[in-house]
């Protein structure tokens, strides 16, 4: 399966309250691939993602969807192609998983034509893909963090987007659930051909799951490409101001960052008893 839609930023500048956070940035999301954006806090990676999702209006440059500026397209049309899972969406009190996932159909519905069998099929497929079928009747506010995140991803899938953007989908999750969510996204990318772009904090998980790694610093891209080509000790030192060794991940062979830090020469004290 191939994804035919193309989302790219051209000379994109984004600002909050007049303060530029992203400056003149060019980036194309390779269709059908998983792009991961990393960078230190405040480097503008979430801002960039929000700009790509048209949650922010550019102060300069533009975001193009298949060659057309995003801001000239109708919101609903964009929403049928580009889905965004923000960092902290809110689930209305008491809503069931089935209803929440169903709201992903919003851009495909109208005021009076609100639900049909096709919607049912898409929502059912989204529940299956995320392994949340057995949760369908539960209330979202009773779920664990990992379950909840899978449900939100199911909602984004019900939107049936070709391009799925996620802002730190693994925050607040323990390591098991982080891997679970990332595996789920990798599966979706492989099986449905969905173009995935996400912001991640963990460099090693980013290196493991990205086809295309984007490293940002101070609102600009400092490096991009395949993780094996991009992620070097020099780059980590440059972008994160962190001394680190980069070795091969013993499980996947992808690059793995081992930070050195100040107390590296001093192994943890073994406590008596």
């Amino acid at each position, binding site marked *: 399966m191939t994804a035919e839609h193309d989302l790219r930023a051209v000379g994109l500048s984004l600002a909050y*309250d007049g303060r530029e956070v992203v400056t003149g940035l060019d980036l194309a999301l390779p269709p059908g691939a998983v792009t991961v954006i990393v960078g230190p806090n405040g480097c503008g990676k979430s801002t960039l993602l*929000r700009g790509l*999702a*048209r*949650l922010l209006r550019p102060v300069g440059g533009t975001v193009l969807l298949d060659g057309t500026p995003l801001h000239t397209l*109708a*919101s*609903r049309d*964009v*929403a*049928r192609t*580009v*889905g*965004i*899972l*923000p960092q*902290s*969406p*809110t*689930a*209305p*009190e*008491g*809503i*069931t998983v*089935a*209803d*929440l996932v*169903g*709201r*992903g159909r*919003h*851009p495909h*519905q109208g*005021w*009076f034509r*609100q639900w049909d069998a096709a919607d*049912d*099929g*898409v*929502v*059912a*497929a989204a*529940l*299956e893909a995320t392994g949340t*079928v*057995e949760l*369908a*009747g539960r209330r*979202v*506010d009773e779920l664990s963090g990992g379950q909840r995140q899978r449900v939100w991803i199911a909602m*984004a899938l019900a*939107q*049936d*987007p*070709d391009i799925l953007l996620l802002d730190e989908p693994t925050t607040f999750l323990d390591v098991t659930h982080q891997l679970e969510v990332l595996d789920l996204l990798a599966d979706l990318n492989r*099986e*449905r*051909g*969905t173009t995935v772009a996400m912001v991640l904090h963990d460099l090693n998980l980013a290196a493991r799951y990205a086809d295309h790694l984007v490293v940002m610093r101070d609102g600009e891209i400092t490096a991009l490409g395949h993780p094996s080509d991009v992620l070097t000790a020099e780059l980590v030192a440059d972008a994160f101001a962190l001394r680190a060794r980069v070795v091969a991940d013993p499980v996947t062979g992808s690059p793995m960052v081992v930070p050195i830090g100040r107390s590296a020469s001093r192994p943890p004290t073994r406590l008596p008893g």
Partner: protein
Amino acid sequence: MTTTAPPAPAREVLRTVRHARRRRTVLVCTVLVAAVLALAWLSLVWGGRTGDTLDYLAGLLGTGEGGGEFTIGRLRLPRVALAVLVGAALGIAGGIFQSVLGNPLASPDILGVSGGASLAAAFAILGLGLTGAAVGVAAFLGATVVAAAIYLLAWRDGVTGFRFVLIGVAAAFVVNGGIGYLLTRAEVSDVRAALVWMVGSIGTPRWGDVAVLAVALLVLAPFVVGVSWQLRALGLGDEAAAGLGVRVERTRLLALALAVALTAGATAFAGPVAFVAFVSAPIARRLLPTGGTVLGPAALVGAVVVLAAELVATHLVPSLEVPVGIVTGAVGAAYLLWLLATTDRREATS
């Protein structure tokens, strides 16, 4: 993108969940409609002869002699009809405010929108010596102007619920100050008229009043349906809603404008009946805890609240008719205390 073959068991589960929700919605709405009808019937017959009402209704249907034209047809039926319309309008308006602003305290009667109506009405009565429909028009304008002012003051690259609520509360204090000023400067006899208006009462409306409000509500109804649908997406947060293709600021403005029109319309005819907008949607949400926008059920709850309060106000103390706003005010104040007492605890445990 095409989806894979729809998995049968998942569809089955979805259908079950949806049917359960629908059953509950239908049940709750049926009970609420029954309550509206029962209260309406009680309002018609209480303290009169049931025969009159039956005769009158039979007359309307053309199957009987008719009768009771004055008590039922002129006095009680328009009153009941207006109570239902006012309750429904305020219930919907409160529901919209609370969902758009994401705050259970955010309702037009707490945020100074109804206060704006009162201030304008007080000015019309005390300052300009107006009466009747002109006061209603002034009230409508007052509510609209204050709401627009709150919106503009809260605007800062868009409107957040928090800012809107804070500025709305401040606006309520300002208009109350204005009302106080007008009352202290006026003649005592005029003050009484203004106070009666500001407490909120259904009074004895003419059919013409009822018709105007009914037509206004009918015209606004399709917008309520549309806004209700957009609010479902907005309930997921601004960013998620924008991601779903909702134009957040425009939707919020449209929804608030609609709610203000409903509030101003109801207030023009019945005065600012306290707390109806504030309590109706939360009650509806409690009856239907499914995360929906519950504007329809909120309208029914609003009608029930106003009808019930009107009954109490009319019959609680024999030979003394209390304005309906006093009763809803007492009920609403109790609810507000309960809300404040329970909210913290619930947030602490979740």
